[in-house]
């Protein structure tokens, strides 16, 4: 069982909420989902669409054909009819517009039902959900339960009022279209799943990692992290600050992190551009910080509500001067939870900025995630604050009288002590008996400013050693999917393209072409030797990226000297599909 349901209508009339409800019904009925939203950068008047790919198996890709298209307006039909087949069901209201006869037509009198029951325009969606569950043979009680949850605060009358529209939609199918019922959503028992977006996964991962300050300025497609954490803050005991601009955002987080709490910020490319000055600041002061970037197509304002991976090189090389940072790019929600939580540990262990990269496609698409996976991860996760100490290790060795009540003299803590692994002890400000400064100027071991040559070299070398330590302790090599030895075709990609390339591999193997896939989620720095060994074999490597420059390919070339010449690059603001990759590969093979 594998189908795509899609709903479209005018922006501002509840399409998004309806899509999430459909995804939840599908997962509560025992199925896996992956969904995708299309919306313009405005609140009213544009076209919104929401598609849900439902499957008996775990998925994280979109499907080319639409099996059920719910058209709340004519535009929905016009925009998406090229993805319909002769067996697709098209739901529409004949009183509002007509459509061609090439598909299975399901005429639902939305307008009449609304006027009979005195409903608001937004309740068209509720009817559509009733119609959908009816057509798919799903359990209407699941839908009625969700309606109840949605309106629980508004009381019985509102719940019952909304339920009528579900019933009316469902009755319409039973009465007139029982011959078209597909029985795709027959309820089955399955493990419990969570319906979450990449942004939800980052939010949850942050709480798991004990993030206590999250600061942000709203920017699509990162904003829902701020709204999630703002909604949870009292329960969880974290503080969100919606500051005046992204410069303030990152500096608030840096201040909080200095004071000893795990802190993060989130934004998209343009907002990150404003933060960059302070990425460098966190670099030299060695203050841990987690930065979440949900990319969208630039440059400048670009296409705010669409997707691209165009900020990779900007992110990797962000910040003036030479300093250390770590860049991660999860491939799906599960990786997002794991790598987000890991990012906070890495930031603390290595005392540097750790950047978690997403994009609109990963950030705003829901994917069902096994609840057991999340619960197990929560149980296994350990907060590792690295060398954050209550009392400095040298305190006992020295005279040790600092804390005595008789003598309150404080001493200068060696915050930037030269160490073999490059990491120095960090002390929470307020610890009695000590003081120190985190200095944006180059500094000596105790934090005081220096312009002398040798201390400068010592500190640069110390900071550089943090990367060496990271590469040997915490860097993870890319995962290889498929048989690298036996495959002639090897895909190389990173971040959110994971599910799509995996699906392309499946489609290709059905055609008799076997491939391997090297998927990077630890993006920078890279272990040059090990990565080079993966890339310089006698294979046909194909780079897959959602940008026009092949930015990750350039980064690999810079780091390893290996150039991947064959590329599949897409940069129209839309996510890559498996079919597009397959098409390209077949062309490569023929050439």
């Amino acid at each position, binding site marked *: 069982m594998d189908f795509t349901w899609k709903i479209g209508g005018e922006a501002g009339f509840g399409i998004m909420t309806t899509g999430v409800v459909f995804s939840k019904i599908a*997962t*509560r009925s025992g199925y896996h989902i992956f969904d995708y939203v299309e919306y313009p950068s405005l609140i009213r008047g544009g076209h919104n669409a929401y598609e849900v790919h439902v499957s008996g198996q775990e998925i994280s890709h979109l499907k080319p054909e639409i099996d059920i298209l719910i058209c709340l307006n004519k535009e929905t039909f016009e925009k998406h009819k090229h993805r319909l087949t002769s067996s697709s069901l098209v739901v529409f209201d004949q009183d509002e517009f007509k459509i061609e006869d090439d598909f299975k037509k399901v005429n639902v009198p939305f307008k009449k039902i609304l006027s009979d029951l005195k409903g608001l325009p937004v309740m068209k969606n509720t009817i559509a959900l009733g119609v959908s569950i009816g057509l798919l043979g799903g359990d209407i009680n699941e839908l009625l339960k969700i309606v109840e949850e949605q309106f629980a605060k508004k009381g019985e009358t509102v719940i019952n009022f909304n339920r009528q529209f579900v019933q009316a939609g469902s009755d319409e199918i039973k009465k007139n279209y029982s011959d078209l019922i597909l029985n795709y959503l027959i309820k089955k028992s399955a493990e419990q*799943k*969570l*319906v979450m977006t990449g942004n*939800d996964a980052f939010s*949850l991962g942050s*709480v*798991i990692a*004990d993030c*206590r*300050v999250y600061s942000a300025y709203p920017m699509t497609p990162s904003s829902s992290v701020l709204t999630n954490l703002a909604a949870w*803050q009292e*329960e*969880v*005991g*974290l*503080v969100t*600050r919606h*500051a*005046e601009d992204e*410069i*303030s*955002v990152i*500096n*608030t987080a*840096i*201040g*909080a992190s*200095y*004071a*000893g*709490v795990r*802190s993060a910020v989130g934004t998209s490319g343009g907002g990150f551009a404003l933060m960059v*000055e*302070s990425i460098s*600041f966190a670099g030299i*002061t060695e203050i841990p910080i987690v930065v979440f970037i949900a990319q969208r197509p630039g440059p400048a304002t670009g296409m705010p509500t669409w997707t691209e991976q165009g900020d990779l090189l900007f992110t990797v090389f962000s910040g003036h001067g030479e300093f250390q940072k770590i860049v991660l790019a999860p491939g799906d929600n599960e990786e997002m939870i794991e790598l987000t939580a890991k990012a906070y540990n890495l930031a603390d262990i290595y005392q540097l900025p750790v950047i978690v990269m997403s994009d609109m496609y990963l950030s705003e698409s829901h994917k069902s*995630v096994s*609840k057991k996976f*999340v619960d197990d991860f929560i149980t296994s996760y350990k*907060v590792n604050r690295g060398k954050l100490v209550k009392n400095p290790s040298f305190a006992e060795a020295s005279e040790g009288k600092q804390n005595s009540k008789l003598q*309150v*003299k*404080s001493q*200068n803590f060696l915050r930037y002590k030269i160490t073999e692994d490059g990491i120095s002890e960090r002390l929470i*400000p*307020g*610890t*009695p*008996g*000590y*003081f*120190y*400064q*985190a*200095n*944006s100027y180059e500094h000596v071991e105790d934090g*005081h*400013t220096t312009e002398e040559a040798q201390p400068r070299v010592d500190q640069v070398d110390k900071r550089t050693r943090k990367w060496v330590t990271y590469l040997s302790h915490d860097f993870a090599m890319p995962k290889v999917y498929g048989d690298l030895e036996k495959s002639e075709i090897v895909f190389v990609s990173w971040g959110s393209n994971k599910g799509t390339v995996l699906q392309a591999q499946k489609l290709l193997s059905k055609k008799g072409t076997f491939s391997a896939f090297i998927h990077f989620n630890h993006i920078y720095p890279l272990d040059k030797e090990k990565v080079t060994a993966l890339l310089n074999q006698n294979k046909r490597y194909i780079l897959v990226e959602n940008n026009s420059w092949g930015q990750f390919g350039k980064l690999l070339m810079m780091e390893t000297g290996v150039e991947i010449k064959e590329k599949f690059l897409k940069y129209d603001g839309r996510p890559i599909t498996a079919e597009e990759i397959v098409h390209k590969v077949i062309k490569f093979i023929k050439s």
Partner: protein
Amino acid sequence: MSTIQDFSGYNPTWCPGCGDWGIGVAIKQALIQLNLNPSSVAAVFGIGCSGNMNDFLNAYVIHSLHGRAIPNAIGIKIANHQMPVLAIVGDGDCYGEGGNHLIHACRGNHDITVIVHDNGVYGLTTGQVSPTAQKGFKSKSTPNGILETPINPLALTLTSGATFVAQGFAGDVLHIISMIKAGIEHKGFSIINILQPCVTFNKINTYQYYLQRAYKLDANYKKDDFKIAVQKSLEMNEEKFPLGIIYQVEKPSFTDQLPQLKEQTLVNKKRFIDFDKLTKLFT
């Protein structure tokens, strides 16, 4: 009790006669008189001659970027609202590069104390005009005189929601000490604008200039009246400089209004572990 020595780091490198000397001593004295010590206070410095005090003051310090001290200070306060937090900044730093941060820190009534060294010039970059320079002031960056009118720091912060606005003069250290102490003790956002002659690059706003134009507020001055305070602040536009607490009212600070900080500071609270409360939102 701490001593000046406890708070003293490196020897200052300010020019002889610079107003920063007086401000530096006043800050240390205020901290001592409030019974604080280098371990119990946090300070964030901007970049400029004033920012160089980072090396001369012993405390838990961030020497921040130009203009960014205020949001750093806000972050520290959110993480540990029981710690006194100072932002020690310059006029270019705070009214120019970081102007937006200042406005919004006032609005948020963040419980930090901003101490501004206001000398009308950028000393560290050799004397270009700052946002508080009088119109027509000639400098290397404005050889024909600055075209803009000066920022009025008192009026700006008052109308942005600051709950404590004061002004001092670097030539009167005892008065500044009392202003800084009152600012730190004030619960909510406090700013002390300190008129400070730059003896090297500002030949207009000298000690003599301020001695002639600055005056202390009367003992019966009503500091909790917003309209009177705004009127007072506007005297700055006529080059008259009131010294003292121009305005002070009690309002809940940013951290006061966060229920999650009622019991404990953020840095000292226990880790949240009741994850089912979150995962159930996604079923």
